[in-house]
């Protein structure tokens, strides 16, 4: 186990040694300056990339860069603040502004978010130009002091930025491989699904915005004290573009991508200096070509290429290795962040099989309780619920209640309002009037992730998984609501954190076994066969240890064997004490397992009762099969 870890550590140590010795290796001060600029851009690009990790593209990082630089410069020049204080103040004030702007804008998505960030950046730039009393306007602030008297030449700056880069990258690495990084990944992959398993996407986006602006603010301060000058051109759109190109060209939302991009795009323009006037022309053309041929960036493109080469070469390698050593040769697997825990999980796995899936003592939260279960207690109550979309009354004055531990089916023709009802209960969709209560608490004012955190978890009619990651990773991403979410437990890897990691691994393994998807653990979700994707959706919901499971047409697209398996699965989920609300068209499934059925048509309840009562109900037959059929049965 230990040996697999040694190699990457050795590489990193060697790398650091080279970086430490770099000033002695470089023949020319100019190169050292280039190295400092690369470091600065690594910070900027990596910080900007944090927002990419939650799927938001900002075109306003320079607002924070400029802000950090101006704060630091003004504090030092006008108020003679010591460097370290000015440096930290730049970070903190920028982060605070990032928080405010985030509060205002992070409800927006895609192009809307992009454009509002440009608006802020340009606004800040105009303030920098026009607020001459504070900023000296277009002249800028000159004679910003060096951090200390011994900051002479480039060397001290180089070591300072190196330290900063190492610290920031280490922190980002740590965050990436923590529950926070996973939540961000889930949001990027499929925000709606993320929210429906309890991930508060807004909170994580805020976290990303604040962290990103903090790091950019610090970088701005460094800039001010390095160049000893701050002017409004620091806020130019061109600089934003440079940063964005670094992130995208390198490979957005990867850790190494922005680093590679920053280094490349600090050096390339310098090389292009020879072409002086054509430099920006080439830059523009390069961006267009990059988008056309490598929209995911250089790093992912290279990785894909490498993977292909490995796939091509590995059979030959394997044969070679087998013939040489007599042992099968395995390619090194990517090292998981906490191998010791994986080990612990593996040893604990055998005796604990299925225990966590069935255990009721789930940290004292809302896990179903045996006594209640036997008491047939009302769990969910829907009262006088209406949902209108303009003139369409999708759900109209509907009332019913669901009891603990039952399988409750909702049926009705397409367009009867079943999905709208599920959306209203899980708060992914609107409520026009009426109330929905769960264990006496009204859900009306809650958001989707709050509902999920009360263990009401749903699946979707149109298959909804985290498409670009493996089956196993899908399950891991869905574990969020059972994990510590704070920054400290994640950075420090507290006992609670480690326990939840173990729980996550065990649980994922158990869910895989439960769904009989073990052989697909490493298959990318969107290349799973359709029926298996639907099972995976069920697994994602099971990772949260739900007390109520709401299934929206789980059998759609399944063949009859798969439907039978699904039937058994739903029954055994119910036997674990989970209440199941099932929206389904497959009558065999509905009639086969549900205890009570609610029939909707035009958003209204037309019948409710046991399967046998429903089968005989005239209104139901008419609604489902049309008048002809009703006549036919009547005759």
């Amino acid at each position, binding site marked *: 186990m230990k040996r697999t870890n040694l190699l990457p550590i050795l590489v990193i140590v060697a790398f650091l040694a080279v970086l430490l010795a770099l000033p002695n290796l470089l023949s020319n001060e100019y190169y050292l300056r280039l190295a400092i600029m690369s470091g600065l851009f690594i910070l900027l690009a990596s910080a900007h990339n944090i927002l990419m990790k939650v799927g938001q593209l900002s075109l306003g990082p320079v607002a924070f860069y400029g802000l950090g630089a101006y704060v630091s410069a003004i504090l030092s020049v006008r108020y003679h603040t010591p460097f370290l204080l000015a440096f930290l103040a730049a970070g903190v004030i920028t982060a605070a502004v990032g928080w405010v702007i985030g509060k205002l*804008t992070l409800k*927006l998505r895609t192009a809307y978010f992009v*454009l*509002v960030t440009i608006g802020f950046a340009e*606004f800040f730039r105009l303030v920098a130009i026009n607020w001459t009393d504070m900023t000296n306007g277009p002249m800028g602030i000159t004679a910003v002091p060096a951090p200390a008297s011994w900051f002479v030449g480039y060397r001290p700056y180089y070591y300072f930025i190196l330290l900063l880069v190492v610290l920031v990258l280490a922190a980002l690495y740590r965050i990436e491989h923590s529950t926070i990084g996973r939540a961000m990944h889930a949001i990027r992959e499929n925000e709606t699904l993320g929210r429906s398993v309890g991930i508060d996407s807004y909170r994580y986006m805020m976290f990303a915005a604040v962290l990103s602006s903090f790091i950019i603010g610090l970088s701005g301060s460094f800039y001010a004290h390095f160049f000893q000058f701050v002017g409004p051109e620091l806020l130019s759109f061109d600089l934003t573009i440079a940063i964005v190109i670094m992130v995208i060209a390198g490979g957005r939302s990867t850790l190494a991508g922005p680093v590679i991009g920053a280094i490349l795009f600090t050096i390339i323009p310098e090389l292009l200096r020879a072409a002086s*006037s054509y430099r*920006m022309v080439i830059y*523009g053309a390069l*961006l267009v070509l990059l*988008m056309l041929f490598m929209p995911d960036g250089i790093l992912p493109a290279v990785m894909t290429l490498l993977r292909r080469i490995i796939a091509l070469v590995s059979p030959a390698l394997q044969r070679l290795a087998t013939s040489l050593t007599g042992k099968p040769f395995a390619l090194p697997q990517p090292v998981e962040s906490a191998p010791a825990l994986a080990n612990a999980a593996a040893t604990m796995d055998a005796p604990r099989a299925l225990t966590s899936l069935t255990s009721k003592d789930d940290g004292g939260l809302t896990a179903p309780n045996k006594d209640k279960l036997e008491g047939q207690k009302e769990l969910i109550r829907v009262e006088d619920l209406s949902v209108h979309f303009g003139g369409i009354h999708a759900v109209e004055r509907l009332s019913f209640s669901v009891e603990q531990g039952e399988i409750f089916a909702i049926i009705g023709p397409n367009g009867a309002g079943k999905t709208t009802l599920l959306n209203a209960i899980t708060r992914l969709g609107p409520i026009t009037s009426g109330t929905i209560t769960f264990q006496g608490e009204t859900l009306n004012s809650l958001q989707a992730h709050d509902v999920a955190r009360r263990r009401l978890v749903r699946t979707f009619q149109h298959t909804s998984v985290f498409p670009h990651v493996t089956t196993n990773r899908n399950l891991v991403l869905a574990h969020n609501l059972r994990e510590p979410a704070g920054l400290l437990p994640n950075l420090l890897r507290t006992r609670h954190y480690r326990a939840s990691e173990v729980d996550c691994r065990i649980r994922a393994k158990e869910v895989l076994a439960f769904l009989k998807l073990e052989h697909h653990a490493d298959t990318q979700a969107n290349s799973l066969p359709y029926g298996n994707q639907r099972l995976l959706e069920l697994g994602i919901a099971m990772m949260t240890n739900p007390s109520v499971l709401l299934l929206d047409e789980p059998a759609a697209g399944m063949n009859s064997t798969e439907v039978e398996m699904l039937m058994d699965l739903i029954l055994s989920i119910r036997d674990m004490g989970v209440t199941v609300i099932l929206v389904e068209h497959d009558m065999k499934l509905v009639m086969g397992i549900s205890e009570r059925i609610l029939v909707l048509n035009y958003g209204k309840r037309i019948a409710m009762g046991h399967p046998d009562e429903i089968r005989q109900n005239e209104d139901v037959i008419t609604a489902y099969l049309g008048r002809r059929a009703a006549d036919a049965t009547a005759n």
Partner: protein
Amino acid sequence: MAEFLQHLLNGLMIGGIYALMGIGLTLIFGIMNVVNFAHGEFYMLGAFGVLTLFTFMGVPYVLSLALTALFFFFFGGVIQRLILHPLRNQSVEVPMLATIGLSIFLANMALIIWDPTPKDIGLPFPLKAVQLGPISLTPIRVFVFFTALGLIVASHLFLKHTTLGTAIRATFQDREAAALMGINTNLINMVTFAWGTALAAVAGGLLGPIFQVFPTMGAATSSKSFAVVIAGGLGNFPGAILAGLLLGIAESLGAGYISSGYRDAIAFIMIIVVLIFRPTGLLGKSRRLG
């Protein structure tokens, strides 16, 4: 009062140009879901087109304008085909970044070809102002305003009353259903982009004689047209017209009475305020054409 009216009329003229830029941009967004960052560069190139034809080659002004429009219609079509068509299935930021690359490319190409010094197109019409009571209007400003207005009305009529225009609106509302009608939606994309490009180029050719022409003039106008499109509601045609006129007037009055330094900030404040408080735009409904 006279001063106020003068500001108002100047504002209307600039606003008409913003609206002309805005409708092209909003159509392109509505049909193709592309935020076109090169729109300002098409505007700049349009001005240079008129400079070349009218000032350097002596082609009559109105004919120069028409030839410029025609050229950039085809230019836009080619750009759409070469750059945006291959990216049509990518997530929204990919084509957006491609147009940013294009805008950098075009602006810097122009710097090489025409050097950065601002140039005068010269006056196509007599300078003598027409006095209307206390207000004076130069013929060129009248021409600019009515040409812009005419093109906006023509665009509206085209969308509303021709088969191709109706097909564009249909594609805008439901791309797949439109294709099921036998509408070639790729062609619709191309025509829309070409048309938006031509409108932007004409806008440049119209304002060229009033201000000066220089390679980086696109950037400022570009951001103003974004403000117009956002305030009007992304993809909202009448909204873009209204927001364009409003922005023109607000800038003109703001520069006249408050401070000319913050004149350009008005557009960005408009972007921020509208997106935060009313992201569907001033007219409320985000998707509406014609």
